């Protein structure tokens, strides 16, 4: 077994993946952006925002727990 790959050639070495921390941070930032809009929102928009907030919070929880 060679200690290093035979070829170091890669077509994605600049393309780092989202980390869990970075993903959680982005989700929290989106939550923080939406929350203040809730109070001023009319009912139809409010419903949409609440649905999105719920989904975003669930995603944060899942990333923290899984």
């Amino acid at each position, binding site marked *: 077994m060679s200690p290093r*790959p035979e*070829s170091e050639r890669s*077509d994605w070495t600049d*393309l780092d993946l989202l980390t869990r921390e970075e993903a959680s941070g982005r989700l929290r930032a989106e939550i923080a952006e939406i929350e203040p809009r809730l109070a001023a929102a009319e009912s139809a928009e409010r419903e949409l925002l609440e649905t999105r907030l719920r*989904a975003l919070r669930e995603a944060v929880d899942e990333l923290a727990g899984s």
Partner: protein
Amino acid sequence: MPLQPWMKLLSVDDHLIEPPRLWSDRLPANLKEAGPRIIEQSRGEDVAPAEVWIYEGRIYPYIGLNAVAGKKPEEFGLEPTRYDEMIPGCYDPKARLRDMDLDGVWGGLSFPSFPRFAGTVFIEGEDKELARLCVLAWNDFVLDEWCATAPGRLIPLIILPLWDVQACVAEIHRTAAKGAKAISFPENPVPLGLPSFHTDHWDPVFSAAEETGMPLCLHFGTSGSAPKTAPEAPFAVTIALFGCNSMYATADLLFSPVFHRHPKLKVGLSEGGIGWLPYLLERIDGTWERHRFYQNVNQDVRPSELFYRHMHGCFIDDRFGVKARHDIGVDHITWECDYPHSDSYWPKSRAYAAEVLADVPDDEVHKIVELNTRRLYNLPA
């Protein structure tokens, strides 16, 4: 708001990380040991071992580059990682769909990771039958498991056993019958030790693509050759110039016999941006006008005409390209998200696309984010 709620965002360039048992679940028993599988590798005391791919005894240490919790961007580098350090949407199709919903993205086409974007890691295989079966296994995973989770939303792209033209043809027909929609192909085969677009070597492959209606997706970097100006130049130079690979591929194809021999062949340039297209097409046409007479190039059809018959570009955040869309041709622009790479705007891809396209008429936005992709990849609405 030009990006209307009823428009379905379709991304032509996303990525998946192969789950650990992709090959061991599909290869014959006598080949499982040599085929790609995940092993653990020590990273030192008090640190969970890395999970790395091993294939024919060679270690490929990066299952998910930089998917390491707790790292700051300035600390990113090349190092091994683990599945539990990634977001599940990288390798779990149900989690991917949840993340797409959060992002306001309806559909996406994902390129491989361990096999490289066009499956070129298997060219290195010593046992070519094993390598061929590994290609088939990746395609079967995509068709039977990944995309079967949400047909119509997860769009099946396949890879090919590039060292064997007849095997490529057979795989195109086999996967087309199972619902494949696109073929990942190297932007330039030559740096990989394969014949160029200027030979007749690939004609059976391109004919099979025409017959099955599957476009070739040329993702930048799939030639294995990255723009590099100096050994000591920062990697930022290479990243900034990556779109040049798509420029090379465009000029290479437009001056090659490929489109003259294959009038139905379609090509999507993946992740190369679009803003450069008007300049390059003008330059290519000018070159053809002045210099075609003494060269082995087609004498009758302007290269830009070929572009408009055959090729498409895509963008994530090319604001200049959006401004220049009429010089590019609105029908030749598609949109990409690039999830789960960190240069994606997840979970705000839809909001960001709306911002970038804010000054574009609704009908043009609809073409760019959805309709052009449906036409190119034969995706019914």
